[in-house]
């Protein structure tokens, strides 16, 4: 009856996450067969998993509705939930940056009232309040954040950048790097203790794959 429940992010992280689980012997056939199932079960290993919107993964983990999960560091920072972040999975790597028109480079301090458009209001606010010690106006958007400075909605943006191409094509530049982002494995604070055997099994399984991939061993020991 005590399954290990795993929450995975839908979208770009999903396939890689599934692949890693499969490599360590989790039966993902239910997921691959087209059906309307929401929860996939591997009876042999006592594992259940489901896919949810990336931003919801930390919530499922904090409440204990899932024991562990895979989520991007961006959502972990934005959601700021009480949970354990135990492993950097490395994939989905990109950067959270502050960006704006090139003419603002080096002149940020001269801008008195800053309006910052972003999908990540919490990250933007934290960055300005703690790192720059400034108060800002946050404008929450749900997509196409790069547009905001072009049409005068905001002076600055805080957003994820992979190659930087979108920024460049729109005349924007990176003004500061806020954080490096990649997929992380997170664990509920109770599950790590109450289901330590299974949790460690997953951590070890994923870690082995990472080490094989990178051939480096700077990862934490359990």
């Amino acid at each position: 009856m005590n399954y290990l429940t795993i929450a995975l992010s839908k979208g770009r992280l999903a396939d890689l996450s599934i692949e890693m689980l499969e490599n360590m012997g989790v039966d993902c056939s239910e997921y691959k067969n087209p059906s309307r199932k929401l929860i996939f079960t591997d009876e042999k290993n006592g594992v259940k998993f489901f896919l949810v919107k990336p931003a919801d993964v930390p919530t499922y983990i904090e409440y204990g509705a899932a024991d562990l999960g895979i989520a991007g560091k961006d959502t972990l920072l934005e959601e700021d939930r009480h949970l354990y972040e135990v492993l950097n999975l490395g994939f989905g790597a990109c950067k959270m940056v502050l960006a704006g028109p090139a003419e603002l480079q080096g002149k940020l301090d001269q801008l008195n009232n800053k309006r910052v458009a972003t999908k990540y209001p919490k990250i933007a606010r934290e960055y300005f309040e703690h790192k720059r010690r400034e108060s800002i106006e946050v404008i929450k958007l749900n997509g196409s954040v790069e547009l905001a400075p072009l049409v005068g909605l905001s002076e600055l943006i805080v957003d994820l950048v992979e190659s930087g191409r979108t920024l460049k094509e729109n005349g924007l530049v990176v003004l500061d790097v806020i954080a490096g982002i990649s997929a992380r494995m997170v664990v509920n604070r109770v599950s790590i203790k109450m289901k330590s055997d299974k949790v460690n099994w997953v951590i070890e399984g994923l870690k082995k794959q990472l080490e094989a991939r990178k051939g480096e061993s700077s990862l934490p020991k359990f």
Partner: protein
Amino acid sequence: MSKWKIHTPEGVQDILFDECALKRNIEDKLRGLYRSYGYFEVETPTIEFYDVFSSGTGLIPQETMFKFFDQQGRILVLRPDITVPVARISATKYREMPYPMRFSYIGNVFRYNDYGGGKQSEFTQAGVEVLGAGTSEADAEVIAIAINALKAAGLDNFKLDIGQVEFFNGLMDETKLSDEETDLLKVMIDRKDYVGVEELLGKCEMGADLKKLIIDLPALFGSADVIDRVEALALNKRSLDALENIRQVLNILDDYGLSKYVSVDLGMLKGLNYDTGIIFRGFTYGIGFPILTGGRYDRLVEEFGRQCPATGFSLGVSMIMTALQRQKADIAKPCIDSIVCYSQKGRKTALNLCGELRRQGLIIELDLSTGGVDAVKKYAAGKNIGGVINVSDEETIEIHDIATGAVNKTGISELVKGCRI
């Protein structure tokens, strides 16, 4: 203007019959348990001055407190915790009382912006505090009570993790990290944020052994041999004393016969800001949050004018209830034993009979509808009441068993003579 009148605000809830019965049941058991260890109960006000919780070490973050003003413009809060008020009492009202002082309490506390996942803005805490005892024996006693409290509440599958903040503080003495960096590191270690810890330490200069130990800290949890492993490393006195403290507490708990419930987590750090020594958290299946937290707070009472070591714990009664429900524990529901109805002539007899049966410990409802015995039987069947007692007069009493349909006739004298229904 009455748009909200049928709703309750977010983070608070009504507690209805079955839950309330369960809650009182748990509270009674806890109250009895605490008392049996010599921890007498106190009640503190629901409303306190903001200063009680905010002065000095900045105990409780202000954004988590419900605040309002009194008529002189002073800031009041709904108490976010009862440990701090108990510290206030011990340093003021019980200033002259000899050590150690033992307190217990059961009461509601209020935290703004902190609800979700079984957590509410208003919730009941039941805990104990022992003041004036700085020994490992005191640490062990409160942990033993905590374990027995969870058992008394009906849980049997749970774990208690023990940490010691001085171990971390000792390590920090050896580094040149700023206070800000130390605080950040503390939070990251407590979150087992390996990636963050490694990143932060990567920028700092310190001995390779020390760096490795701090990076490993989030993973230093499990059985007592964690302590042996770490003790072998060259540590300063502060850290070694902390390890010795945990070891003693574990030994005492072993003598209590409770070792199977406890494990060690040296990476557990961020309880409340006033933690100074042993800290602990309790966990169980079915609930993603700690159900119990506790620990030593030797510098809190001096904020109120008296130097005094102290330790204690508090347990979330609502969390325990959620855990019991999720673990499908056998929960007794409140039920009515019998309902008494009567005709005019039998009224006095019926009322006396009710009184007598209640004195015998039965739960007796009185029929208020006066709609006759058939209507009452129907009502009883719908409400799961075991029997209907119909009193026509002193000598004519019918007892209807709802489950079997059997009817017994009897008189008042026989019925009252201790025969239980």
